[in-house]
């Protein structure tokens, strides 16, 4: 089972502590929530986990291996997929092309075959096209396959990012505010897909502002404020925690 474990993860930018001694566990087969007010350091933590930022101290263990010092592309190839808070798509490329790039780490044809357009390269291209179409079907977006990704509505662009992350067939998915800009129906529909993925044995770390969504979906929630974990537990316990209420609403 590929669990993600953070041990005393610490990051400071000069004198500013962005992540203060954070330890947490994101087990396979579960949806783990990460919440906290704006500027709490949630995205910084994701960037530390995925190797986009380097740790000042502490450890990130993924499936038992220490990946703290690995570059981001190797972390991704180890089986970690993510979406971005500020959507990052190839805006002019088609939705299909945007999803197909996600299969990159599983492509097997040789470089020479790709350069010379040998049958193995063409077969792989056709196969990935099919697999990408199947993913589009699962997210109800088969009709948008040829649209430029940048022309889609905001919520749909988020879905394209998710399909791309899923195409990498990750063991752990980090979702940075996946339902921002979506209505409740769309969010619910996505929630169902997240649950299916967890049931398949994937670990999911969900960063979200939508508390209702977190309460419905997450098995366990961590609360971050000022770079420090201030609470953890079931969603119900966490929202009742006085420290969490203070962090979100201020002191009385």
């Amino acid at each position: 089972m590929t669990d993600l474990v953070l041990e005393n993860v610490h990051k400071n930018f000069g004198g500013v502590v962005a992540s203060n001694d954070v330890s947490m566990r994101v087990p396979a087969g579960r949806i783990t929530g990460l919440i906290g007010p704006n500027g709490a350091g949630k995205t910084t933590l994701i960037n530390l986990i995925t190797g986009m930022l380097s740790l000042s101290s502490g450890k990130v263990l993924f499936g038992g291996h220490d990946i703290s010092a690995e570059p981001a592309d190797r972390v991704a190839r180890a089986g970690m997929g993510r979406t971005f808070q500020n959507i990052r798509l190839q805006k002019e490329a088609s939705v299909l092309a945007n999803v197909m790039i996600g299969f990159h780490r599983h492509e097997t044809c040789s470089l020479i075959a790709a350069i010379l357009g040998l049958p193995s390269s063409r077969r792989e291209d056709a196969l990935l096209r099919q697999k990408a179409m199947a993913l589009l079907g699962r997210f109800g977006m088969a009709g948008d396959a040829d649209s430029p990704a940048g022309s889609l509505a905001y919520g749909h662009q988020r879905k394209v990012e998710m399909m791309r992350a899923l195409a990498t067939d990750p063991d752990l998915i980090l979702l940075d505010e996946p339902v921002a800009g979506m209505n409740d129906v769309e969010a619910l529909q996505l929630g169902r897909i997240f649950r299916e993925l967890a049931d398949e044995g994937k670990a999911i770390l969900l960063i979200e502002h939508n508390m209702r969504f977190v309460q419905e979906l997450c098995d366990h929630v961590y609360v971050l404020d000022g770079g420090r974990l201030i609470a953890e537990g079931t969603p119900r316990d966490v929202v009742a925690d006085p420290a969490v209420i203070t962090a979100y609403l201020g002191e009385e």
Partner: protein
Amino acid sequence: MDTLLSFRPLFDLFLIHLGFAYSQYIVLRAGAFSIGNVGLSAIGAYTAAILTVNYGLPLPVTLLAGALAGLAFGTLLAIPLARLRGVYQAIASLAFVQIVLSANLYAENVTGGAMGFSGIPKLVGTGTLLVFALGTIYVMLAISRSRLGRAFDAVREDEGMAVSLGINAARTQAIAYMISGLLAGLFGSLEALHSYAVEPNQFGFHLIIVILSYVVLGGRRSVWGPLVGVALLIALPEISRPLADARIMIYGLILMVVMNFMPRGIVDTLVARRARRRSRAANPEVRQAEVKG
């Protein structure tokens, strides 16, 4: 028939410059702002010329040697450029072109210095050029439809995104430099064995501007972009003879106008426009979303 024959030198020029344009296109497609390919063409040209004249090696061997020399130096160039991005990459690669140019000027006993290297037999005709040009277009199309083309596009559009999908950006761009070097070296060799003589300044700032104009005017994403760019810019001075003398000035003007009004180049602009129109026809609600958004 006579009129057709009189266009032959122009067609040869078109085919050679098509190869140069693709050696530029492939690095830009991978998101690397290198113009080092012009220096690599010089290396290929001198390699082929020297091996032919001084050592009497046959055409296939000299062409292969020129292409491999381009590939080798392209690979070396990738190492320092991998640490740089954007305009710094461009400046460093320009420095490389200058280094090659100066080396060819100073190594007089090997290269003939400023006088150039002459007495090269004309071993390459329109047929050979056509074969290599068509082969290049085929390879570019094959790359476009492969994992490599997808990786190039991802790295160019957003390196952080590409990396989050497991793509090694430095390695991907290094592959682009190698393909670019191979093409630059090959078409440099063809140029040398087609035009009787080569001289250092032929592969300098002037050629950089010409090649960039092709790719900027035609487009940097679609494989057909460079083809359209080369065809238009080579035909233009011929259609209007008085323009021929001011060729480089016209190119500069076109560059400035295109960058302002069609920054993606002719082909890429048309392709994007068509895709947008088609997706609107298929999906009326997308238009609403766009209007709202």
